[in-house]
């Protein structure tokens, strides 16, 4: 068989700029947002984390949002409310 060419089946994902805001030097007096991903015990874990941030790091308050499900990003309402009402957000997989 003579030489031939084959085609690349892959693609590169679109690149999105992603920048983090600076981490606060201290959590003292900060309002903490907790984003719960609907999995078993993720709410309990986040409540515990929130309590530690208040008791040991001086955070002022916590509030929690619940995502639609664990397979999707936090929905727009969460993002908008978080921007308005908290200084720091804790999110992660609870499983």
């Amino acid at each position, binding site marked *: 068989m003579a*030489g031939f060419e084959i085609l690349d089946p*892959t693609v590169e994902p*679109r690149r999105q700029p992603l920048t983090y805001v600076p981490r606060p030097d201290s959590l003292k007096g900060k309002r903490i947002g907790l984003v719960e991903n609907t999995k078993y015990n993720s709410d309990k874990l986040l409540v515990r984390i929130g309590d530690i941030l208040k008791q040991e790091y001086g955070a002022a308050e916590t509030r929690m949002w619940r995502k639609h*499900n664990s*397979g999707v990003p936090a929905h727009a309402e969460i993002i908008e409310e978080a921007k308005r009402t908290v200084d720091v957000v804790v999110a992660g997989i609870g499983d």
Partner: protein
Amino acid sequence: MTTRISSQRYAVEDFHEALELCYSKGWTDGLPVVPPTEPAVRAMLEAVGLGPDVQVAFITNRQVAISAEKVAINAVMAGCRPEHMPVVLAAVEGISDPRWGYHGPATSTGGAGVLMIVNGPIARRLDFNCGDNLFGPGWRSNATVGRAVRLVMRNVIGTIPGRLDRGTVGHPGKYTYVIAENEAESPWTPLHAERGCRPEDSAVTVMAALGPHQFYNQLSGTAAGVLGTMCDTMRNPGMVGQPNYCVVLAGEHMRTIAADGWSKSDIRKYIFENTTSTIAHLKRTARVPGAIKAEDETATRPLVLTPDDILVVAAGGRAGSFSCYIPGWASRTTSQAVTTVIKERRP
């Protein structure tokens, strides 16, 4: 619409070098692939009348646009013929539908495969297997269409096992998981017609699915007897709160159930009512958290939210007292089965 194929090209000396290149690049599912040459890819595109750059789907959370060209390349690699391309495209559209919720089932430790059920005239014309050895090897259409979708997931969307596909145990259906409904012998309304398509349409239903669970009933001559056996094994879920179950009823069971005059709706209702578990049982077997309360002994939980969440399909060999059920993956809020009409030609 451009006709230019824009994918990067690799020059190879022969078939062996092409195959090894595909392996070394990580483009295969572990099995050998057909080298995707431009003529073969063009034949795929021409079969559906799509330009290479046409976007057929978009996976939001991966920010990946899936072009007709990339689907065609992966379909060639999987061993599809051009006439399979419409089915592959429809399945790719299905898994890209927000209701299917790509990220969850594709990525989860739960290890779902993409169960594809093909209905309508195209299933017969392309000889999709709906009979003996239903989930087994031996039929090109079943083997290559499901494989093409999995290669699109891997190569285009980046769903690579061990990286973005974190299935803990997975299952063999992640190579390919395609069946057709035996519409010729089924006494019932075909699945796609129940799900909003016209009976004369061809359609593919995609469901995020765990492996098939076979059950056996050679003793009963009644619908309730056959389905009672199935429900007894089915009610102990591997997970709790699945969005869908697919029930695949093969020849002997199909005829027994139909002889009692049961419709698919009757079957769904029976299964729904006979697969509940008590909350106490689910807690006792560590499927639901919490201490068991007195009321948990009588409070029950259904397997799925509504009878309509059970997909009933007539398929499998004519002989043998076996049928199966297939649990869906995760929950109704994370993934639902989606039925997509197969368009033979695009604009």
